[in-house]
């Protein structure tokens, strides 16, 4: 079954990753629908990063199966990499290249044709009101701008799904909100968003969220349903209830 024929952009069953005797990700099974904003939450050491690496084609599962953007997570890691967008807080853009050079570099890596690339980059920069900064070195930009630009770069090749790994860490509250509006906008145009965050208010912006504890997905639902089933006033409270039982990590 290919995910392109279904409504699921991610579909994994019993996905597991072992490092020696340690089971980092332990039989996780879930689906993400097309166009959804999906929040992937978990305590430190719960296995989020390892799971995300498998979903992005950067690491192969020890067992289990599934597809991301229509490609097999067991066999087609390379194809997955080419068809998704990825942005992390830690690495996103080259400081010593200009705004436009970064766009050309990443667009080129993802195989966007030169003429098409120029057009798309210009449109994106205009939308961000960045066009005057096209020849500015990235290192001279404020952090908030860099993050917004990094998101634009991650979606330059029009991927069906974008993975965002703590995209708003350390960003001021206004810029953080502007960033989420970019996410909303991309989602409203059909791009699926898969996002991790430590800000619990951001979890509320997701259509559905999953919470990982000790390598397993302990809860997965809409924020409203999660609060209802855990009889909690906020997602923060749901998270605390679940994470308190964690054996692993800290």
């Amino acid at each position, binding site marked *: 079954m290919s995910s392109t024929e279904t409504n699921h952009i991610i579909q994994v069953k019993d996905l597991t990753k072992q490092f020696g005797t340690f089971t980092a990700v332990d039989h996780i099974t879930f689906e993400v629908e097309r166009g959804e904003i999906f929040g992937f939450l*978990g*305590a*430190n*050491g719960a296995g989020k990063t390892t799971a995300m690496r498998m979903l992005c084609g950067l690491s192969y599962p020890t067992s289990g199966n599934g597809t991301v953007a229509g490609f097999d997570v067991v066999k087609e890691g390379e194809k997955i990499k080419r068809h998704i967008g990825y942005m992390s807080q830690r690495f996103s853009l080259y400081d010593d290249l200009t705004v436009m050079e970064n766009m050309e570099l990443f667009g080129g890596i993802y195989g966007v044709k030169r003429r098409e690339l120029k057009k798309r980059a210009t449109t994106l920069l205009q939308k961000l009101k960045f066009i005057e900064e096209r020849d500015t070195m990235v290192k001279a930009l*404020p*952090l*908030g701008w860099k993050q917004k630009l990094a998101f634009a770069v991650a979606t330059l090749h029009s991927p069906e799904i974008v993975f965002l790994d*703590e995209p708003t*860490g*350390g*960003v*001021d*509250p*206004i*810029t953080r*909100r502007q960033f*989420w*509006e970019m996410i*909303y906008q991309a989602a*409203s145009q059909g791009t699926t968003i898969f996002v991790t965050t*430590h*800000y*619990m*208010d*951001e979890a*509320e*912006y997701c259509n559905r969220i999953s919470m990982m504890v000790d390598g397993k997905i302990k809860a997965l639902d809409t*924020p409203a349903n999660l609060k209802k089933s855990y009889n909690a006033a*906020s*997602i*923060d409270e749901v*998270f*605390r209830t679940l*994470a*308190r039982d964690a054996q692993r*990590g*800290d």
Partner: protein
Amino acid sequence: MDTSTLAIEVKGISKSYGTVKALDKVSLDVRRGEIFGLIGPDGAGKTTLFKILVTLLNADEGTATVDGLDIVKDYRTIRSRVGYMPGKFSLYPDLTIEENMEFFATLFGVTVEQNYDLVAPIYKQIEPFKKRRAGRLSGGMKQKLALSCALIHKPSVLFLDEPTTGVDAVSRSEFWDMLHNLREQGLSILASTPYMDEASRCDRIALCNTGRVLDIDSPQHMVEKFDGRIYGIKSHNMYDLLKELRDNRCISSCYTAGEYHHLLAGAGFDLGDLKQRLIAKGHSDVEIKSIVPNIEDIFIKLLSNEQY
């Protein structure tokens, strides 16, 4: 105020890196036995201020004292009186937990046993793994070890630069519990954080952005003196709702804030009127309630007054 009642006194400190002004005439006081929070995003100047106060960096202008001592003249004495936990993990990864502790104790001419009582509540949580190398610890354990090492010489003032960044919500809350215990033992603490929700765990806070202090007060008083009315609002379509509210002239500003958007009421704002208007525009499940502003609301308002 008599200087001796202050753990830290900062007067007009500025520091530039090339053309970037990292700190712009920053002044603040930290009282003895207080937990003072430096709250702001990356680029606010938090780390630069820490480095200046622990005497690792010279300021371009301004003066400061730590534990009543001048940061320039008395830098040697200050170094023995402060505990400093930098933002980046700075212990020796190839030494074990135990060896790191002994190393830092020796540097300050004390023994681990001598001050064991002070670090015990924190150190006991990692002591079962004391033969493990520091480089192989989880984030939370590294954080506890770094705090233990910063405390082992029984400092009078503790500097914690973003001790909870990248740490999950539960571990963050536990970390603040530990700081409250330390305060009970008489330590003065200056801690920085980008997480606005941690403000409530501090006695007083400074909200800072791009090298400047926007306001200093207790978190409670900041909320009390907030000038304006904030409402939480939601409907079935949050993104459309946001765009809709921004077009409303009776609303000064509106932004996302979790389950509800927050809006700042402007002139002519009427709750019933707004609700009807939204329903007429096709919004369903509209809910509006008056709310007490949180530190993030305050920060956003202070920032909007300035630059945005």
